[in-house]
């Protein structure tokens, strides 16, 4: 065996371990879940029966599942673009400041490295009605009316989205900042010598060069918001996704089907529906950005 072949073999052996893990822990259960979604598998039923597409019909005609899909879409549509725009803005500002960059970066990344359950509960308490909630106390000190936030079917979803935007900003800002620092100064300096103003440099040089990172973050954040769970579980009362299912995400619906109703097969079908949606959205994002990336 040549040295190169030996090296390759070693690499294959090391790579095989994660592959085995992936097949055993990720792929296997997924196939199992697909098979089970055509049965009446329930935790409290001893026998399995084939029910064809019955579970898919059951979940797709369940108004609560449809509502949770709508909610999930709203999380993603409001949440992901807000994170990208805000964190890009913050990263651009951070790139400009000469001193204290590290300290600022730390402040922005702190929410992201804090356990999400703790973040959710602290915000849940801050969102409380008067006389307890900090945010309402501030609003009222400013002479404004108190808001219902998590108690209102109209405001609860936005409140949870806002918290998650705040959390995810830490991550995105860090990545954007890293991206900005890889852009060679020579390019923007050359553009400036050619007479470009700073707005033109930003739009024609910086942003196009950041495009691969923007694509990566858009996809990651899209997925992040499409599978939102922990925040909703902890910020809605008794983890119900309320009030009136107004914050229930598809992931929470699946969890409840599986672990409150013990209808594992229906939960499996709902998961596959969500999986299909996430895959389709990711695919569309790739296509869209691929066209825009031709710089």
């Amino acid at each position: 065996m040549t040295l190169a072949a030996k090296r390759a073999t070693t690499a294959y052996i090391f790579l095989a371990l994660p592959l085995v893990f992936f097949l055993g822990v990720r792929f296997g259960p997924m196939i199992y879940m697909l098979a089970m979604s055509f049965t009446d598998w329930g935790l409290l039923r001893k026998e399995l029966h084939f029910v064809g597409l019955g579970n898919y019909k059951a979940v797709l005609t369940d108004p609560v599942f449809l509502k949770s899909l709508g909610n999930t879409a709203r999380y993603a549509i409001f949440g992901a673009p807000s994170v990208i725009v805000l964190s890009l803005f913050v990263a651009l500002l951070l790139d400009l400041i000469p001193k204290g960059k590290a300290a600022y970066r730390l402040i922005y990344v702190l929410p992201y490295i804090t356990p999400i359950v703790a973040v959710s509960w602290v915000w849940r308490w801050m969102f409380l009605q008067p006389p307890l909630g900090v945010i309402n106390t501030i609003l009222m000190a400013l002479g404004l009316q108190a808001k219902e936030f998590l108690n209102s079917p109209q405001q609860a979803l936005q409140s949870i989205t806002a918290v998650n935007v705040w959390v995810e900003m830490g991550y995105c800002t860090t990545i954007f900042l890293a991206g900005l620092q890889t852009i060679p100064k020579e390019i923007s300096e050359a553009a400036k010598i050619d007479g470009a103003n700073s707005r033109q440099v930003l739009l024609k040089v910086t942003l196009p060069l950041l495009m691969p990172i923007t694509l990566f973050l858009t996809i990651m954040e899209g997925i992040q918001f499409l599978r939102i769970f922990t925040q909703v579980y902890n910020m809605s009362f008794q983890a119900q996704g309320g009030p009136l299912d107004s914050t229930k995400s598809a992931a929470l619906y699946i969890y409840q089907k599986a672990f409150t109703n013990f209808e594992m097969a229906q939960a499996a079908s709902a998961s596959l529906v969500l999986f299909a949606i996430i895959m389709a959205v990711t695919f569309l994002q790739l296509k869209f950005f691929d066209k825009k990336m031709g710089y």
Partner: protein
Amino acid sequence: MKAKRGLVLAILLVLAVLAASAETVTITYWQYFYESKVNLVNELIKNFEAANPGIKVEQVTFPYESFNQKVAASIPAGEGPDVITLFYGWLPMYVKGGYLQQLPTSDFNKAWFDKTYYPFVAESVDFGGKYYSAPTAVRTLALIWNKALFKEAGLDPNTPPKTLEDLAAYAKKLSKYDAKGNLVQAGLLMQPSGQGHSWLREVLFRQFGNVPYNKDYTKVTYNDANAVAALKWYTDLITKDKVGYPNFATDDVTAFKAGKGAMNIDGSFRIATLNAVKGLEWGVSELPTYKGIKSNYASYWTHGIVSGTSGKKLEASIKFLKYLVSPEVQELWLQKVGELPATPALSEKFKNDPVVLPFLKGLEYAKASLFVDEAGQRNIMVNAVDEVVLNKADPAAVLKAAAAKEQAIIDGFWK
């Protein structure tokens, strides 16, 4: 010589340990985490092990929110407990699934249940003549109030409201608002997701002249004008009188403990919890009546043995279960937790206890809803209140839809 003797001793010692460990049976007991109950059971286990050498009991607890989930995931897999304490509303599900075993008829038969328990208990643990579980204690609802807040509002701290009309009037007097009109002290805590949904369905509906279910709880019958009037009365307290609202100061128990709520409808299991709050002076009385009608909601947690337990473990489990429902434990349970003895005769002793008496009186006319999916059915009532309060929906339409949804759950279970 010495070495030989040492060897013999060592062998004997090993044999003795082996023999002892062969004789010891360890059984696992599960309940949800409620501090006073967990502490009491730890004590009970000590007593039980002392009286039954050779049996060890291990107590495992989970938070209420995830308890049912752990149970459903473990028992079918044959992993979990031997003896388990379940909410009576979950029982039909586990019995139907075949995950609890029938208790030995020699000890647990109809005659014994009828003799030992309140009629509503004996009826609701009876599955076609078979018995899968037995409870220690039962709970009812009562009105609890904060005496200091009564004094502050100029009310007699020892005279609680006796009727629903009085309750509403008192609640208004006890509510406080800030300059912007936000509620800062609730006159009456309104928590449908706590005991509120049971107060509505088994107490208010009945007091307003409705019968919420047929006798065996297979038909939902609260879709009528009387029940609508009850729901309207309940939600008017939130929307018109503004004496409280769901999740005020996180939830009713937190608010009451913090002195942010003057009155609450709560269960007897809260006695120990409230007694532990320093400086909280509280009173308890029977639920307010309406048009002279009294009603109450009773519930209980009940102990069963899972289907996979057999042999020596089964024998030990039966012994432990018998101990848990014994008169001695029933009395301890009342003293340490506040839940009432499930055997009527044992209650007699506590007739002079001002805290226990109102709950005991409630037992005389209490109903225990026969849930098939306790969480699902609770959620329907919680959402009905939210629809009226948050979406300003028409109570009649809301109740009609709720009844249809609950009927679908019940039909789905019995089909």
